[in-house]
Each structure stands twice: as C-alpha cells, then as structure tokens.
C-alpha cells in the first residue's frame, strides 16, 4: 500500500509561522543588521563590518560574565534536577494530601520574578529577614550585599526555591503516567526501592526531564530580574550575569551595535548548549 502524503495541513501552521516571524524572526534579523553598523539615529548609520564582534569577543568583562553564567546555570541544574525528582518521589499520590502538596509546591511558581527578588532581599537581611537572622544566630556574619560568596549563595538558593517546583511538578506528572503493571512486575521480582527507581521510574521520566533540563538551562542562562533586584549584580560584578551586562550596554550606554553583536553571540551559545543537551538525551534514549 502506498502512503498518500497530504501536505495541506502545513497551511494550518501558517498563522503560527506569521506570529513567530513578527515576534522572533524579524527582530532577530534587525539585531543582525544592527550588529554590523554604528547607529547614531535611524538616518545616520555606518557599516563597520565585524568590528563589534571583535570588541565583544575580546572584552574581559564579558568573558567573566560568561564564565559566571555557566557556573550559575550548571550549579542550579545540578541542584534543581535531583532535588525536583526527590520532591516528586516524596509527594503523596492519593487523597487530599496530593492536592495540598501540589498547591504548596506550585506556590513559588506563581510569584513574579521581581517579587521573588524582593522577597529574598528582605529574607536574607540580618536585621529584618528570617534567613539573615538565622545565620546571625548561628554566628555567621551573613551579608549578601558585601560578601560575593554570600551573594552567590542567596542567588542560587533563590533560584532553587523558585524553580525546583517546576522540575518537581514535571516529574510528578511523569511518575503518575507510569502504569501500575510495572510496579506489580517489580514487586513480583522483589525489586528493591533503588531498582524500581533506576529501572522503572528514571527511564520513564526521561522525556519530562529533557523538558525540565532545557527549560531550566535556557531560563537560568537568561536570568535577569531576580539577581538585578536582589544584588544589582554586586558586590562589585560578582553576580553580574550575561543579560545584565547586555542591558547595561544596550540601554545604559545605548551602544546598540556592540549590544547587538553580544546578543547574537549569546543566542548562538544558548542554541549550541540546548542542541547538545537535546541531542545527547535523545541519543541516550535511542541507544537503550
């Protein structure tokens, strides 16, 4: 039997394509255009070739911000993914407890980014904040406004508090989708709790974990609001991540050309890392 290919359905995708064109493709093309010009106003602009790219790629402040960004993203991934799985495994599956746990876990996700920054700004202060006061009671001179390590700890804790629920909820839905027969078979084989996790739950969670890892990586790599509200990028530049450097350049100094070149390098890095993650996880699945 020959398969009849009907490509008419593509027309139904057209509206989405048009929306994406307006919201992403055309702005991206504009950024490419800006990245090769020195723009003074809409009518005065000069072609400068790859000069901005050279400037951006050799700027040590941006190198530092990039390194900080990678350390930050991988740190929060290394904490949030295992913690999210653990929380999902511990959440009750039936009855009122399940609904209550879902609501409690989802609460941080409902809070806007700038509010999260403000909450932690107060929470971490030794004079009026619970966390800061607790650290002071423990004899630790905790001050995220002057100690880079403390600022980092607060920014990481804040992200873990804000976004681990997303991973937990994704894993929870993944766990609920595993048919009971798998567990029955495991019980017949007298499988240990670890074996059930390793050979039944974890493989079945792969798909939701791909989404979780990609979402968390992309979001954390583009993080702006929370550190901006909490530390303003300081002390010094210790928590200045890429997007904040970009905003300083584009809006603070109005250097549109270098900012556009920087955006493109930023975009390419995110594209590369996401592609590597996605391909690696998909191939791991295939090899099984």
């Amino acid at each position, binding site marked *: 039997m020959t398969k009849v290919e009907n490509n008419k359905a593509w027309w139904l995708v057209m509206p989405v394509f048009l929306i994406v064109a307006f919201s992403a493709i055309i702005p991206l093309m504009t950024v490419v*255009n800006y990245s*090769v*010009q020195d723009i003074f106003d809409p009518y005065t602009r000069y072609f400068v070739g790859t000069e901005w790219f050279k400037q951006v790629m*050799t700027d040590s402040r941006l190198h530092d911000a990039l390194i900080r960004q990678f350390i930050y993203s991988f740190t929060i991934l290394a904490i949030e993914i295992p913690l999210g799985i653990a929380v999902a495994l511990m959440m009750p599956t039936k009855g009122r407890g399940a609904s209550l746990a879902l609501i409690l876990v989802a609460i941080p996700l409902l809070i806007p980014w700038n509010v999260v920054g403000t909450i932690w700004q107060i929470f971490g202060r030794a004079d009026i904040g619970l966390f800061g006061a607790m650290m002071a009671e423990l004899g630790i001179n905790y001050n995220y406004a002057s100690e880079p390590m403390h600022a980092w700890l607060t920014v990481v804790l804040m992200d873990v508090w804000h976004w681990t629920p997303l991973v937990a909820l994704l894993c929870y839905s993944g766990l609920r989708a595993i048919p009971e027969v798998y567990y029955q078979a495991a019980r017949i084989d007298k499988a240990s709790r670890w074996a059930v996790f390793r050979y039944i739950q974890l493989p079945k969670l792969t798909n939701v974990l791909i989404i979780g890892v990609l979402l968390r990586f992309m979001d954390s790599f583009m993080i702006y609001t929370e550190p901006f509200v909490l530390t303003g990028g300081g002390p010094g530049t210790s928590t200045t991540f890429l997007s904040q450097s970009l905003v300083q350049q584009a809006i603070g100094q109005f250097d549109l050309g270098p900012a556009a070149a920087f955006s493109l390098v930023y975009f*390419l890095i995110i594209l590369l890392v996401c*592609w590597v993650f996605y*391909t690696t996880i998909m*191939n791991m699945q295939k090899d099984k």
Partner: protein
Amino acid sequence: MAWMSWTLPTAAFFAGIALILVAMTTWQVISPSVERRGFLPLDTTRGDRLFIGLLTSAFIHLGFVALSDVSLYIATMLCVIWMIILMRWG
C-alpha cells in the same frame, strides 16, 4: 523596512539562508531524507547535518574574528568545505 536598517551584506546573508532552506525543502520533497550515521557520533538526517553545519560555521567565523586578523573570506571558504564534507560524509 527602513527601521530594520538593512545593509547589503546582511541582506545577502539572509537571502543565502532563505535560498538554502528553499533548496533543502525542494530536495526533501523530491527525495525524502533517511537517517543515517556517518563520521558524526549520531544518526542524522540532511536537515540535522545542515543545522550542525550552519551552527559550527557560525562558531568558526566567531573564532576567526576573536582570535585572528585573518580575512573572513578564508573562514567562509573553510566553512563551505566543512559543509560539503559534513553533508556528504557526516
């Protein structure tokens, strides 16, 4: 279109990308691509190899800009050779 601040090189670049996409789509319609494994450590279709090629080409160009003062035409030529190798044996 004035607000987009077009320049001839960027227009040529996007026209090139658009042409490649149209050509690849036509090729796909005429003879659909089959996943296979070449020297890359993963199964790829033609579209995958094109994506990998374009992404690596972007980084090769960035590397040339960042690390040397050599003309970018050399980088472009290297990338074209790389794309051919990747599409044929990748």
